[in-house]
């Protein structure tokens, strides 16, 4: 096992695929990473940014995510988890970044994202001390919730839905399900390379189908004359134009904690996939991974990019294909950095039809949910766990079902009940302590009796 080779897996964590396969496997991950680039595009549109500023935000977001992915794949003393767990633009930061940008422009957004990154870095060493707080069934819940948290965006994409209230085209839905079916069947029935490149094959099949059946996908590819082939990313907002605001510190800290929890879940999932036989978590790579995540977020803030986060979908893809080599993440990160300087190519890839993107996210998300559930029910179950997991799921999922309710809730509830993943994790951790209070007291008094007796 030292060389990272695993029985039944195509490439283990430490194994370096041959250059040709390394590049193709990295491209497969890069295509999935492109899903998150919709965030800086939407961000720029909501800010009413000029095309030049939009291009800068996208390029720097790619650069930050690319560098973050490379660092995450390393295994240095304090930096890098050493898992295939690439960085993408973090959706959890999106709405708060937009608020900061509205309140104080790009300088304030940059400053607050840098602070959030520093908070994540500060939290990283604490994780090692949280073994008691995260028993394995809660770890399983966290991993499952990572998959659950992408349900909304992935299904909306699968149906080709751009905006709330818009119609859903029959051709788009057909293309989405066709693409998903090709991915699943290539994974299940495919052998060798077809299985290894199942996502890429499904994406290609879906894109071809979209070009045939969806006229808008042909339109979207018809003109790129205004996009330069090569361009150096520029900072129209000034390299050192950074500001901070105290009143935004608390919400950004809360989101940083949520971001850390999400990355914690992703890194745990990556570890569980890499070491399924392990009975205990190895906290060191997770600590280093969180440190890297925080550093990448701070770097993104310095660049003026969207905050970055570890990617659940890519971890899911690694799990579903069994291709776990961390060098794929290194190569994917390098490609992402390179594409930041090639806007025309990036623009073409970014026009991938939404239903195909949705299919990719669902394909990867399936694995995350099931890996989490299996880890959760691996140990003996009892009534306490039923309440911990049940109440955590109720509260966590309610943030997705009832966003209007939480938007009008008291401030302290709004701060912590943001998204399904962080909410479920916070409630599970608190409930786990509450329902086990009696055993804690009983154990302590038993210990005192023993000492006294």
């Amino acid at each position: 096992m030292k060389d990272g080779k695993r029985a039944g897996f195509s490439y283990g964590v430490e194994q370096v695929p041959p250059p040709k396969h390394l590049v193709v496997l990295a491209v497969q991950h890069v295509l999935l990473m492109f899903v998150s680039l919709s965030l800086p595009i939407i961000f720029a549109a909501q800010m009413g940014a000029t095309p030049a500023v939009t291009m800068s935000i996208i390029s720097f977001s790619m650069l930050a995510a690319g560098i973050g992915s490379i660092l995450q794949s390393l295994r240095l003393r304090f930096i890098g988890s050493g898992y295939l767990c690439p960085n993408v633009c973090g959706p959890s930061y999106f709405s708060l970044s937009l608020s900061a940008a509205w309140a104080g422009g790009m300088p304030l957004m940059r400053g607050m994202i840098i602070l959030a990154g520093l908070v994540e870095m500060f939290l990283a060493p604490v994780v090692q001390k949280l073994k008691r707080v995260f028993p394995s069934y809660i770890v399983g819940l966290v991993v499952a919730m990572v998959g659950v948290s992408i349900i909304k965006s992935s299904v909306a994409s699968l149906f080709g839905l751009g905006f709330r209230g818009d119609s859903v085209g029959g051709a788009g839905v057909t293309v989405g399900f066709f693409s998903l079916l090709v991915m699943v069947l290539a994974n299940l029935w495919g052998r060798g390379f077809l299985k290894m490149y199942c996502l890429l094959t499904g994406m290609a099949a879906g894109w071809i189908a979209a070009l045939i059946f969806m006229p808008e996908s042909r339109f979207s590819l018809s003109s790129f004359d205004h996009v330069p082939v090569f361009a150096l990313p520029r900072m129209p907002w000034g390299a050192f134009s950074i500001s901070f605001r105290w009143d935004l510190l608390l919400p950004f800290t809360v989101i940083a904690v949520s971001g850390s929890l999400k990355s914690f879940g992703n890194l745990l999932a990556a570890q569980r996939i890499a070491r399924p036989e392990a009975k205990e978590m190895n906290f060191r790579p997770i600590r280093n991974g969180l440190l890297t995540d925080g550093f990448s977020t701070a770097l993104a803030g310095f660049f003026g990019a969207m905050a970055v986060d570890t990617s659940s979908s890519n971890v899911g893809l690694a799990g579903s294909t069994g291709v776990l080599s961390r060098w794929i993440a290194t190569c994917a990160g390098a490609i992402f950095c390179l594409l930041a300087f090639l806007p025309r190519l990036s623009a073409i890839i970014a026009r991938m039809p939404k239903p195909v993107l949705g299919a990719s996210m669902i394909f990867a998300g399936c694995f995350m949910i099931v890996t989490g559930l299996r880890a959760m029910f691996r140990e003996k179950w009892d009534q306490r766990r039923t309440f911990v997991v049940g109440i955590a799921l109720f509260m966590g999922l309610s943030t997705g079902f009832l966003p209007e309710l939480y938007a009008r809730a008291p401030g302290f509830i709004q701060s912590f009940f943001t998204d399904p993943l962080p909410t479920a994790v916070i409630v599970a951790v608190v409930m786990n302590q509450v329902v086990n209070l009696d055993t804690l007291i009983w154990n302590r008094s038993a210990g005192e009796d023993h000492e006294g007796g």
Partner: protein
Amino acid sequence: MKTVRRLWLLAITATLAGCSSQPRGPNTSMYQYRDTRDLVSFVWKAAEFLREYGLEGIHDLRENREEYRTPDYYLYVYDMRGNALFHAGMPYLEGRNMGQMEDHRGRNIQNMISSALQDSGNPHGWVHYSWWEPEGFYPVPKSSCHFLVLTCGGDSLIVGGGMDYPHEEREFIRILVDNAADRILEQGIRVLETIADPASAYSYRDVKVFVFTEDTVLVSPVLEGGGVNLSLMSATDTAGNRPFAMAVEKLEGDAGVWQVFLARDRYRRMPEKKILYLRRVVSAGDTLYLGAVTDMPEAP
């Protein structure tokens, strides 16, 4: 491996084919919603059909009426005198003259359609109005697009299709503001009276074209705000920004600018995103700013 290679070759060929071939149809890339794009394409296809087959094509439309009616929109064809030649939604209107039809604000719909079709900045002939659905209770808001067709037989036809409860497209306010700016450049500030009239085409649903200078508001952006002394340059949104001042700062030349801002939603009591489109025109030495505000689309 061969299978994978073949698949990839096919993918690259199809992608290149997709990139190189110019798709036939109207350019709908300015619209944010699929519903709007679908409606324009739907009406454009019918217009192309009638361009080719002329009045003979009307019989074909009548024989295949269901194809020209969906739960979201339907097709109609008028001649230049306002006679309804075909109406997929309400066939009993066929043969009637619609020239005097007014919406609930008293606006003549045929006149609005004619004006829209003459506006080069309104390539899909959009008009916005409300109508009463037979046996309905509330007026139904509607946005319709139109194409003027010169048939092979030399007849001119207006081919249109409308969507009830339409999405608020930012393109709609761009068309109105640009049209108002062009009219001020041509006719001077006497056009302000028309722009201010709530029964003009410059007001629809919650949208109203407004005009201001750096010192004063000439046409208020608020529908019932005639008596309020607004100072738009110092007005702030719920995030504390000054959207009008920011938009004015961004203006260069005669191109319009877009500015997003936050305002509290009347019904949900939460901040929602609005978008302002602003143009600058100089008329008789005075610098005027023309704008309109509409809703931003929400993520699914």
